[in-house]
């Protein structure tokens, strides 16, 4: 399709205002907006044709490419209930609103104190612009496999609170992310908060990345007794294993059994080889 650029000033006054809008190229098709500060209003609006919208880092390009064609977007950014970061010292958890941006997450004092690995991972999501606007909820609900937060949150045993006008339910992040670009959310449900247990000692996250998204991400919780391993980015969804410390045969079986993606960042054999080498190096050094 030929793309014609008009400068508005060259045609203003020569065409009716309604036509002017059509002549101006816009990347996106016609779109409505639902905007409210009340959670009840946005819950009442959300369905398949009324897409939850916060940072827009995934949704806007997806609409531009025609991959997603909602009638309207439902802005979640003005709902305070979706923007909190709260610490429950008794329960030993941090509850993070779905519309919290990556930058706010990574800069937040309590997150850095209680969830330092998550804060560090959030500080390297995408690029500095994505971190300004992109949100925790958007990252999880878009379910792009090449995500850092999904892997780290699954490793931490985080849970999601999901709401619709029908009520609320709580489920592990591990069950929220079903597959590549696929969650267990119903079309009328939104993710409201993520509750994360304080980080255990011995946790780390490492990623291999040469483009804008990670090629391979590995979250580890290493204790004297056990290696808890969560592999993300190269898998359709985060894959977990708990292996007795020192069981290198078990470790190799886990690595060999993973179904790894084949994409422009490399074939499965390459990713498996990097993963195996990384895990052996780190876990053998920990013994």
């Amino acid at each position: 399709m030929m793309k014609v650029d008009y400068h508005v000033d060259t045609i203003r006054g020569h065409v009716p205002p309604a036509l002017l809008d059509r002549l101006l190229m816009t990347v996106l098709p016609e779109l409505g907006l639902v905007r409210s500060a009340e959670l009840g209003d946005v819950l009442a609006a959300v369905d398949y044709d009324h897409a939850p919208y916060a940072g827009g880092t995934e949704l806007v390009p997806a609409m531009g490419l025609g991959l997603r064609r909602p009638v309207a977007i439902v802005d979640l950014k003005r709902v305070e209930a979706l923007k909190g970061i709260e610490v429950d010292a008794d329960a030993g958890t941090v509850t993070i609103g779905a519309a919290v941006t990556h930058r706010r997450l990574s800069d937040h004092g309590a997150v850095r104190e209680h969830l330092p690995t998550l804060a560090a991972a959030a500080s390297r999501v995408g690029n500095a612009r994505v971190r300004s606007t992109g949100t925790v909820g958007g990252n999880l609900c878009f379910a792009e496999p090449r995500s850092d937060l999904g892997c780290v949150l699954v490793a931490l045993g985080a849970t999601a609170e999901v709401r619709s006008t029908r009520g609320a339910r709580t489920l592990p992040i591990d069950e929220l992310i079903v597959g590549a670009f696929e969650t267990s959310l119903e079309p009328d449900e939104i993710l409201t908060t993520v509750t994360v247990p304080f980080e255990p000692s011995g946790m780390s996250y490492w990623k291999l990345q040469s483009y804008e998204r990670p090629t391979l991400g590995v979250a580890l919780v290493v204790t004297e007794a056990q290696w808890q391993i969560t592999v993300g980015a190269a898998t359709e969804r985060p894959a977990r294993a708990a292996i007795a410390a020192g069981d290198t045969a078990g470790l190799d079986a886990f690595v060999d059994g993973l179904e790894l993606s084949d994409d422009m960042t490399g074939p499965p054999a390459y990713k498996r080889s990097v993963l195996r080498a990384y895990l052996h190096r780190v876990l053998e050094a920990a013994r």
Partner: protein
Amino acid sequence: MLVPVRLTVAELLRDRLGLTGTKVSCEMQVCGACTVLVDGDPVSSCATLACDLDGTGVLTVEGLARGRDLHPVQEAFMEANALQCGFCTPGFIMMAVALLDAHPDADRDDVREWMDGNLCRCTGYEPIETAVALAASRLAAATAADGQ
């Protein structure tokens, strides 16, 4: 100002306001050419809807110079030869301004990490890093002089 919901910030700036300093390239939030600052935070104007600007302050590359005096980051880009074709330059400059406003003491590693989401296809990144480091040292010196 009334804008259609579907209008991106880049379209608002370039097509409606005639502010063509902001460039559009990848339209995927990858290249950084379209960077503008919203309340001081860098965003990709190609992937941000103009309706979200409601109640915010927006700074584009056109807003940096004071009359004929260029911003120290712009001066540094010229002196360090940190551009050739110049297409990516407004985005790099806005990223650098955001970094140095928030972290005036940023070192070269900080610059490299902060700028890793901006693409340049002709100059290469070394002169750009040099320019930002030069601007940082001058801004630090100016701040120190102001403090005396």
